[in-house]
């Protein structure tokens, strides 16, 4: 079976800064891939190129067989690959319910009644049934991020991209968000997660990708990558994280 996500020789620069250098990466359907690496290593850029929130410069990106370089396939790619953001990016002028129901109506063509019903179920699934009619600014950061996850799930995507989903949260709220993601990992949806939570990475990942300076340096199952790192850059990175 073809991989659900396929990157071949992907390059991306911001001016003179090369954010991604010749990235090759395949992700199989149902896999949970965690991307780690120092800040500025290109991990966020990598997943933002998958749904073309950032356009890549060269190389090919395929999502479920669709070519991300083709503008006519962009909307389909974005419906196949949902995204959860570091800063939640909920729409502040809409209730949580509306945040979740909006895209199914506008993109999938559901009626509001159908979409609201779906949204209520999803909000219940992330433990926020009671908060559906509140506005994002009435919720805690952890709750907002769970709404963000429900919003991405509402499109019934095949892939979910998490861009540092807990980095903007107070420490006591990190757990509730990671729990929701861990539950998702068991449902068979493909997850690609950029995170600094190493314990979490070890628990949920099928594979861990270590990036440094715009390159994929090492890929492997978590026990190998964390317990027997090969590349010196990975060893330095892990040491720096463990010592803090």
């Amino acid at each position, binding site marked *: 079976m073809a991989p659900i996500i396929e990157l071949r020789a992907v390059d991306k620069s911001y001016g003179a800064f090369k954010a991604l250098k010749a990235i090759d990466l395949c992700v199989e359907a149902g896999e949970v891939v965690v991307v780690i690496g120092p800040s500025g290593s290109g991990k966020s850029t990598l997943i933002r190129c998958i*749904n073309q*929130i950032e356009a890549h410069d060269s190389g090919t990106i395929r999502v479920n067989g669709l070519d991300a370089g083709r503008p006519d396939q962009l*909307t*389909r790619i*974005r*419906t196949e690959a*949902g*995204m959860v*953001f570091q*800063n939640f*990016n*909920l*729409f*502040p*002028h809409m209730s949580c319910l509306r945040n979740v129901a*909006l*895209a199914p109506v*506008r*993109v999938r063509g559901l009626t509001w009644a159908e979409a609201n019903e779906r949204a209520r179920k999803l909000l219940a699934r992330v433990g926020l049934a009671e908060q559906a009619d509140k506005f994002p600014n009435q919720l805690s950061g952890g709750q907002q991020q769970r709404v963000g996850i429900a*919003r*991405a799930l509402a*499109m019934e995507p095949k892939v979910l991209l998490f861009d540092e989903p807990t980095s903007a949260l107070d420490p006591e709220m990190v757990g509730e968000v990671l729990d929701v993601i861990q539950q998702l990992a068991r449902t068979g949806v493909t997850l690609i997660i950029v995170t600094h939570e190493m314990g979490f990475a070890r628990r949920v990942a099928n594979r861990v990708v270590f990036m440094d300076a715009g390159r994929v340096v090492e890929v492997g199952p978590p026990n190998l990558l964390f317990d027997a790192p090969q590349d010196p850059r990975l060893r330095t990175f892990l040491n720096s994280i463990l010592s803090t």
Partner: protein
Amino acid sequence: MSVFETFLNWKVFADSLPLLLMGLRITVGLGVAAILLGAVGGLLLALLRLYGPAPVRFLTITYINVFRAIPLLVLLIVIYYALPFVGLRLTSFTSATLALSLVSAAYSAEILPAGIEGVPRGQAEAARALGLSKSRQMTDVILPQAIKLVIPPLTSNAINVLKDTSLASVVAMPDLLKQATQAEALAANPTPLIGAALIYILLLLPFVSLVGLAEVRLARRTR
């Protein structure tokens, strides 16, 4: 004659009030029409300026600059007195609405992009990531938030438009000021002018204080 009899003559005021109120209706009608047309035109110009192809952007910016530079009274007189020479004869109401809308659109077009750019980038990213079309990103996500940001400056602009309706009296528009000057001539007493001034103030004072409040609130929130 005492100062009161001259400037605040109750009988003259009472006599002229029906005329003044007729004028007020025209002033408000003209103001509302120009504000609405100017807002629609301003929104179109703002979108063209932000998202149009380069030549369109250039034309839009030229329009905005020209109509911010031309004095409204001059524009009004050109429309009302000069256009008939090329066969375009507009009523005083149409001329005034046109002049006010053209200028108000230019000012709105200057204000709205600031609001659109004031919406955090993550909002557009989230809208894109959900697969919303370009126009849906705008109408569902960006504009509702942008408009909130620009309500104080847009209200200021609307206040200016309402005030500037008084210029229409020079093209024989029977607005509040025109009615007041006529009543003054009729009564040989300036009280109607004072009355008109008070009506303008009463009409606009609530909006002026609202803008003041909103600006204080915005400043507090962004601090």
